[in-house]
């Protein structure tokens, strides 16, 4: 990069190269100075003490705390990914429907759940049924509520005792993740289908396919290729957001590694944060790597004429805006 022209800088000549060497040395020194300051501060507060780091070298800590936490994180992320994909396909295609009475409600649901913070959705599932169920139990709907919980919501671990519903933290986290990420994925699906050139569906109609066949045989297979990187990078968001379970005491990786470990081992907050952070970064970077690889692969393939949607791990698309954004996109 240093030797060739970019849009911002020309290829450097001898004087520019000398200047770059000086700036490299200066910025390197500043960086080392900052690291030294941090290390001195950590040392002042005794953060390099052996007993603070030791817990992370013990097999017990990993076996009893961190790995079960990681398992809970992966479990919530996996279930939420599958369900939000389902939600995304249903509502994404719903928004593309020709019937206004499907299109408008689907659009309203998607825009609503994208506009609400995920934490509020998790609170909604965690607190609301618990607070309102005693009142519902006394109304004519009491029996209906009990039957519904016993026969359906119990598969997510929801319990009802004497009319009061208790939602486990796991179910609340998964509910929030599915509603929010499902809505984001609905936009991804919609943008993916819309990005297929119009000639494809026109050609499909002209050979006599019906609406269902056009979508199922022509548009969706091409759209899947186009949106795969965007879907995979949304999985990184799902995995990261499981950490919100910490706030409602779901025993996931952050709760286990950052609360339980420091509580049991000399309050080693900094050390726990570093170890847990490294675990999250390692997992997320490997998922991002897959997204990049998929993007490169589908860009090479000639199976579709549409442009591949970016797998950049950016912010999820905002409410009121289309995923594809930019000029030319619907």
């Amino acid at each position, binding site marked *: 990069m240093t030797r060739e022209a970019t849009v911002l800088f020309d290829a450097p000549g001898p004087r520019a190269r000398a200047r770059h060497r000086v700036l490299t040395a200066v910025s390197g020194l500043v960086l080392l100075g900052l690291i030294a300051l941090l290390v001195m501060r950590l040392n002042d507060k005794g953060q390099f003490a052996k007993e603070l780091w030791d817990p992370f070298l013990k097999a017990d800590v990993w076996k009893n705390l961190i790995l079960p936490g990681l398992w809970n994180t992966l479990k919530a992320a996996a279930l939420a990914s599958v369900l939000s994909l389902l939600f995304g396909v249903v509502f994404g295609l719903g928004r593309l429907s020709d019937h206004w009475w499907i299109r408008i409600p689907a659009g309203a649901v998607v825009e*609503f759940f994208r506009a609400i913070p995920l934490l509020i959705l998790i609170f909604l599932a965690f607190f609301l049924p618990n*607070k309102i169920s005693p009142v519902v139990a006394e109304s004519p709907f009491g029996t209906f509520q009990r039957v519904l919980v016993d026969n359906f919501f119990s598969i997510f671990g929801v319990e009802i005792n004497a009319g009061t519903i208790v939602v486990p933290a796991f179910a609340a986290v998964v509910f929030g993740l599915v509603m929010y990420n499902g809505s984001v994925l609905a936009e991804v699906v919609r943008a993916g289908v819309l990005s297929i050139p119009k000639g494809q569906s026109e050609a499909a109609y002209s050979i006599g396919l019906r609406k269902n066949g056009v979508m199922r045989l022509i548009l969706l297979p091409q759209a899947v290729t186009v949106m795969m990187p965007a879907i995979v990078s949304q999985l990184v968001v799902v995995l990261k957001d499981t950490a919100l379970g910490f706030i409602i005491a779901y025993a996931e990786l952050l709760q286990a590694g950052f609360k339980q470990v420091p509580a049991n081992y000399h309050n080693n907050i900094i050390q726990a944060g570093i170890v847990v952070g490294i675990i999250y970064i390692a997992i997320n970077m490997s998922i991002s790597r897959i997204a990049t690889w998929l993007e490169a692969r589908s860009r090479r393939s000639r199976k579709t004429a549409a442009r591949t949607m970016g797998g950049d791990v*950016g912010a999820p698309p905002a409410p*009121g805006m*289309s995923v594809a954004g930019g000029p030319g996109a619907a």
Partner: protein
Amino acid sequence: MEQLLDLLDFGPFFDHFDTILEGFWATIRLAAAAAVLSLIIGTVLAAFRVSPIPVLRAVGTVYVNVLRNTPLTLVLLMCSLGLNDTLALTFSSDANTSYYWWAVLGLSGYTGAFVGESLRSGINTVPLGQAEAARSIGLTFSQSLRMIILPQAFRAVIAPLGSVFIAMIKNTTVAIAASYAEIATQMKSLVDLPSFASGTIPLFIGVAVGFMILTLPAGFFSGWLAKRMAVAR
């Protein structure tokens, strides 16, 4: 049936309206400060990542990869429990003020990584030919940057930046983990009040509407602006 109508009684909601408004005001103060600071951090990061100095490029890359792949909850907890409490790096002797600034710093540090990436991808959308054409008509480095490259780059990043800032507004709720009393904290304290039980549905409706007032217009506005300012290529 009457009991069910009690669930929609907005009485307790309006009794505690002050608390809710206070919570939203705290959220807005956090979001406004974080918006300014994350724009600054993001601009510096983008400059680092496109600079010809390898050390700065490496710093930018490491920062972006670390912050983007760490959950915001962990970032904010590290700021409040790790840096503020354990390392005693406080902004003020008043604990609440200090937690506020750490929440601002944590949220901006996290959002800044996304802002930086959006700005950088905006610069990448400008074709090399634009720079070559600018040079061939005799513009200097600063002229071509000011008149040719940055205006095109800026117009390309309006939509992504809008998304980043709206996500940031919603992320302010995570500051509950960093001991900062914004709307999610107030909401949780109200839900936990035994006397408030029947006002739970109105509370959720109120908070949802509050966030929709903050995010939906911002989303529609930046979507409209992005379309209007789009560079035809």
